């Protein structure tokens, strides 16, 4: 199957479909809508390699970047029609059905890309993680911590880091978040990383924005960065 891109009518239909889901209707993935030639047109990329589901946001972003590589550096990278089409195709991963078939549908920006609005762009459940990983492609392991978790749940760490442009664009700072919050043995986030308390991602993001006014982190070692953080507050995360 080839990737497709909704036209304006298709995007309008997608909005209506999401509204129906939000009102509680139990609807499956809308394959008819996705294949309607009046609403979308094919792009020259096969999506066979994407698979049907994803274990984590990291895996999802990795597969998207690999399979969609031919178009992700083109103007299509910001195509509202393409990302909305993909979001509906992967609806079961992004908004899994409950026992009665209904789905929990969040804000529109989670499914319909808002490419020109930085404060909402990163929220798209597919394009956001895909873009974050692509920005750090040369050392993509640094995105492991912020792309942890299920595709349908961005999580507090992602929200705190990805919403701050100065932080999410910096490989050094993503390396720091991984060092602090990623548990290499359990391959998941350390307990407390996503809380609102001391040493949490929320506190780190706020501190980094302050420190960013004084320091250039790009060439700093992880230890040098950790030394800038309040020692007692981050000790339990920094120690391993």
């Amino acid at each position, binding site marked *: 199957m080839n990737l497709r891109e909704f036209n*304006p009518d298709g995007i309008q239909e997608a909005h209506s479909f999401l509204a129906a889901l939000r009102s509680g209707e139990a609807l499956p993935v809308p394959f008819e809508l996705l294949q309607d030639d009046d609403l979308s047109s094919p792009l020259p990329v096969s999506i066979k390699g994407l698979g049907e589901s994803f274990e984590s946001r990291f895996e999802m972003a990795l597969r998207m970047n690999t399979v969609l590589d031919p178009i992700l*550096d083109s*103007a*299509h990278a910001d195509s*509202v029609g393409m990302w909305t089409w993909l979001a509906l195709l992967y609806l079961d991963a992004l908004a899994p059905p409950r026992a009665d078939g209904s789905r929990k549908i969040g804000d529109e920006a989670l499914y319909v890309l808002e490419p*020109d609005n930085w404060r909402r762009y990163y929220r798209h459940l597919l394009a956001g993680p895909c873009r974050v990983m692509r920005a750090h492609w040369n050392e993509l392991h640094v995105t492991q911590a912020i792309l942890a978790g299920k595709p349908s749940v961005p999580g507090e760490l992602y929200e705190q880091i990805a919403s701050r442009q100065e932080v999410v*664009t910096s490989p050094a700072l993503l390396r720091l978040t991984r060092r602090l919050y990623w548990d290499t043995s359990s391959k998941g986030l350390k307990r407390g990383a996503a809380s609102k308390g001391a040493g949490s991602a929320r506190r780190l993001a706020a501190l980094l924005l302050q420190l960013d*006014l004084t320091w*250039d982190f790009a060439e*700093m070692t992880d230890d040098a960065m950790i030394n800038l953080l309040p020692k007692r507050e981050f000790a339990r995360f920094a120690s391993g």
Partner: protein
Amino acid sequence: MSVRHFNYTHRKRLLHSDTSIALSRREDEVSFDVQLRLASYDFPGDARLVVEAYRQTSLKRFGFGTVSNPRPMGSTLLDGFPDVESLLFRVKVIDLPSGKLLAEADRIKPADPDGGERPSFLRVRSDHLSGEAWKLEFEDDYPILVIEKSYGPYQSLLASPHFRWLVLPQLLRSLLERALREDLDDVVEESATSWQSAVLRQARLLTGTTPPDEGDEQVIAEWITSAVRAFSRRHGLAQRYHADVFGGSEE
């Protein structure tokens, strides 16, 4: 009552007017050139200069030598960005080896001399306009071209011939009307890099005459019309219209 600010970081403010960044296009590649005026800042000569180009989650970092010897340390090619036109730049002066920022200028919009007819000072974004195709808005007195969101990526609309012959002349007219509504001396003296100065400079070049400084609305309207017509002629908008509507060559 005035607000007193404390600069605990001792970081200096690097003025945008002391930085010039210009995009340079060659076939399909876009790179950039930088000129910095740092003599008055009293930075240590060995402080490191770094320029960062960024958009949303993407950032590229370019070494530019030291304060005493500013020069690109490698290629300044802006590859890997899907939309170079919306890039912003940041210039950093860094003390090494501490990594402390001595100065920074952020959100620098580059000049784009070969970037097509759209004025480089005009920001663009898409939004729901409920049937309206486009409109010009002013946010903090800065012009923003808003394009109906359901049309898809605005870049494709900007590149279309329809956009050029239908929208650009009216856009220029609206910008000139707004710029001339303000006191001309203030506009010129306040900042040579303001959007008002830029659009008036462009109109002056198009018409070969300076903007009227009298309050006669008829004279101002005629000057604006002559600038818009000269703009349309220069970019062959009538020919593009014929080619687009009736087919055939633009020549």
